[in-house]
């Protein structure tokens, strides 16, 4: 177990420089920044992380982080707007978020057109609403799973569908879901996603569930359809099955796959 320190702004800049210049060639992540007093600082209340932890899925990662932070007395409100905290978490477990492939290189996703943050999967991007600043969690490798798990930790399946897959697998569905508080905070809707797209036998998501050209895909469900339905229905007070039964025909394709 190691005490968790967070990067300073200069430390985040160094991390970004690493992403820019060295990460793709497979160089080791600059985790020393997290112990260097010039680039990192103490985080209070103290949090201790197990550095050797391997996270098979995003759900296991989210669960671990929620548990560790809760043990330390760190609430969601204390960290949800702290950019450097989340950049530091990714740096801490960098090889799992951005593994070295068989050729000794890393794939480093970037948003070239984003003038504020080129690497929002590693360093959360600030978003401003007037003078209020918050973080765009939906694109961040650590903040996204943390928020989704935290909101669903008391539900039966703890958002296992959305948080399936390794830490570096990041579909559009996760972004679309993690970016909408009305989705991640609605356990019934998360339950519908499970009913529609989860193949229980295979233990995986059904092929094509997020293909935007396919009727009844997940992106339609959490965006267009949800926005349309919320004018007449209240999905928070309906069970997952009730929502499922009320879905329009375009979802029949997925219902048939379940045998319904």
């Amino acid at each position, binding site marked *: 177990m190691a005490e968790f320190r967070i990067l300073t702004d200069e430390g985040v800049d160094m991390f970004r420089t690493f992403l820019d210049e060295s990460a793709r060639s497979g160089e080791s992540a600059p985790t020393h920044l997290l112990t260097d007093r010039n680039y990192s600082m103490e985080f209070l209340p103290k949090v201790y992380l197990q550095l050797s932890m391997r996270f098979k899925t995003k759900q296991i990662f989210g669960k671990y982080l929620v548990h560790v932070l809760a043990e330390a007395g760190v609430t*969601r*409100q204390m960290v*949800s*707007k702290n950019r450097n905290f989340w950049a530091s978490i990714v740096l801490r477990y960098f090889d799992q978020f951005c593994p070295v492939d068989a050729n000794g290189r890393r794939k480093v996703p970037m948003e070239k057109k984003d003038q504020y943050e080129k690497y929002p999967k590693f360093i959360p991007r600030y978003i401003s609403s*007037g*003078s*209020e600043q*918050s*973080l765009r*969690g939906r694109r961040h490798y650590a903040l996204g799973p943390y*928020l989704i798990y935290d*909101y669903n930790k008391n539900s039966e399946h703890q958002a296992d569908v959305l948080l399936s897959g390794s830490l570096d697998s990041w579909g559009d569905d996760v972004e679309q879901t993690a970016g909408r*508080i*009305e989705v991640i*905070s609605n356990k019934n809707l998360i339950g519908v996603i499970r009913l529609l797209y989860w193949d229980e036998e295979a233990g995986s998501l059904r092929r094509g569930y997020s293909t935007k050209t396919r009727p009844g895909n997940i992106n339609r469900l959490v965006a267009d359809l949800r926005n349309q339905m*919320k*004018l*007449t*229905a*209240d*999905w*928070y*007070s*309906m069970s997952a099955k*009730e929502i499922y039964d*009320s879905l329009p025909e375009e979802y029949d394709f997925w219902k048939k796959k379940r045998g319904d």
Partner: protein
Amino acid sequence: MASRNFNYTGRMLITQECIDARLSEIYRKAPLLEMEFNWNMKPALNEIPPGAKLFVDVGKDMSFMRFDYGTFGNPVSPDNVSLSELDSWTSASFVVRIVQGGNLLAASKKHTVSIAQPDLKSRRSLIIADYEDLGERPWKLDVYEEIELPRLVFNQKWWDAAMDSSKPLQEDSKVMGMIMPSVFEGMLNFLMISMKADLHRWYEDQTWKGAWIRFARSLLPDNIPPTYDENETDEVEFLRDSSEWIGNVVANYSESKALSSNLINIGGGE
């Protein structure tokens, strides 16, 4: 092109007058959202079955809480109305929903309440006081076109110190006397120069924008504010005339409140 939205869903609107909401500050703890409802302010709502469920959905950034207020016919405040799950403890947005069997029968628009502005009964408010970590900056004005209500944001350290000495900043006439002329100037700069709002057309606007414009024009009733026409107005001339008009409004405001005289009387010149 201008567009209009029509409500074909049969869902009723719960108007602002039906809702009395306030955020009560609890020292070092999440605030309480206290709500009361008066459906008589909109008689059409009485068509709703009394047994329909009443919910208040509260959110702020990436945080959300739902409160169960019992039924439309017998609203009962939940035992715990602490906004403990919200990311902010100074303000929150909420929507009131009335639901039966999963069907949405009525809903309010999204409203915002703040620690410093408990009154939601009317649109009289021009600005709300709030606080944030501003480093060493003492205060700033937060305004943009889509904002529910502009905010006068104080430095949190200053705000806390004032609260500790039982003299909230927004009630401190010395502080407000020094700040408000600049706030007023900033607001009019935003409306006239950034937004290039037509102050004649916006005069009837029912949001804070119209309220500020009416207030400003009431201070300078005989002096017509300059207007901006993209094709006809000389930009430099407009900026000069606008600055002059704003300066006169702020001067009259300061005059009407005798701001400098009051500052001297309360020791502002020490």
